[in-house]
């Protein structure tokens, strides 16, 4: 299934996403490697690095999107995490937040716990699941250029967007500091600024 899709680097794709963020967009990095590589791509106060609560990057991003319709919001989530909270896709499809984009890194394994296979190593297809939930603007990124173009569309056209990418098994270069209260405080302060003002306080 989806065997034509290129397996890419999560870190490289995360950098490609962050490079395109020019208006203080919020990014919610899911538990483990998703937020580690978001940190490795360069700390931003508009990033929330989710250290626990596996599966909740997408719901948290929805909450931010509802609170601030004028700010674009991205959720970065792994395949194992997304499988924990598939119902959230149906919630989002019905609410249709125009400013929300979901990015799924699919390496078909629970990488951080010992590379046990997830359901996407078998028959599960996340873009088919998202479409079935009602998210019409859902696509696999075929390669890096395609991913970059899909991010650009999710920044310029109304969402909600769902983009999934097949990624390889490379480990993140480092880990986010385990400081949830500080992460939350920075994020909250950044969200209190107008998007586009270029708030960089860390």
């Amino acid at each position, binding site marked *: 299934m989806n065997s034509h899709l290129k397996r890419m680097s999560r870190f490289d794709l995360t950098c490609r996403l962050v490079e395109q963020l020019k208006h203080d967009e919020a990014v919610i990095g899911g538990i483990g490697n998703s937020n580690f590589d978001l940190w490795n791509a360069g700390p931003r106060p508009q990033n929330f690095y989710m250290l626990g609560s596996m599966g*909740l990057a997408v*719901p*948290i991003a929805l909450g931010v999107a509802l609170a601030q319709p004028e700010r674009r919001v991205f959720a970065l989530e792994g395949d194992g995490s997304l499988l924990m909270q598939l119902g959230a896709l149906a919630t989002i499809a019905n609410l249709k937040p125009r400013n929300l984009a979901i990015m799924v890194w699919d390496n078909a394994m629970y990488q951080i716990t010992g590379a046990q296979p997830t359901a996407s190593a078998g028959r599960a297809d996340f873009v088919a699941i998202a479409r079935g939930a009602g998210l019409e603007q859902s696509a696999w990124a075929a390669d890096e250029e395609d991913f970059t173009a899909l991010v650009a569309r999710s920044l310029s056209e109304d969402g909600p967007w769902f983009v999934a990418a097949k990624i390889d098994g490379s480990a993140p270069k480092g880990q986010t500091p385990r400081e949830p209260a500080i992460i939350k405080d920075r994020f909250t302060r950044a969200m209190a600024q107008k998007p586009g003002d270029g708030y960089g306080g860390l």
Partner: protein
Amino acid sequence: MPDNPNGQSSWHEPIIRALKENEVRLAVYVPDNVLRPLIGAVDADAYFTAFAAAREEEAVGIICGAAMAGLRGIVLMQTSGFATLANVIASLAVAAQIPALLMVSERGKLGDFQIAQAITARAMRPILQSLGVEHHTITRVDEAEFITGRTITQAYKTQAPAALILSPLLTRNLPGRQNPSASS
């Protein structure tokens, strides 16, 4: 405070007032029959953004994101739904100091027919206690607005989650006791 056509008190009205006074505009719920009047009220009132989430944990994630971005939210659920939440309360709301507001209709007490609700009802307060989450039980209509409002205020002032438990003494409509105006 008008009674409804069955002569039962409108226990949800003071709660709605307290939510509005404290600018809680987002209400995410997983339905419960006991909560029906409250869910109906937030659904019908344009002040609120109100919708159902597929799961209680998802709802807590949504209101945590909203709270961090300046929109106050509350999750409405029943006791069995609360019992699914220990991890998200611990690892998101408590760890990151997010004022997540939880409102739980207390099932499994005082004549409930569901054995599953009865068991989770016994677990609910010990879970909140052991996580260090401030929680209060509302039993009377004439205390509902005060307890709800003060709990929200403290949650935001202290940047901590809080839970409000709606006792059957409140929601099951004891005539005379519930509604101050009914006894006058």
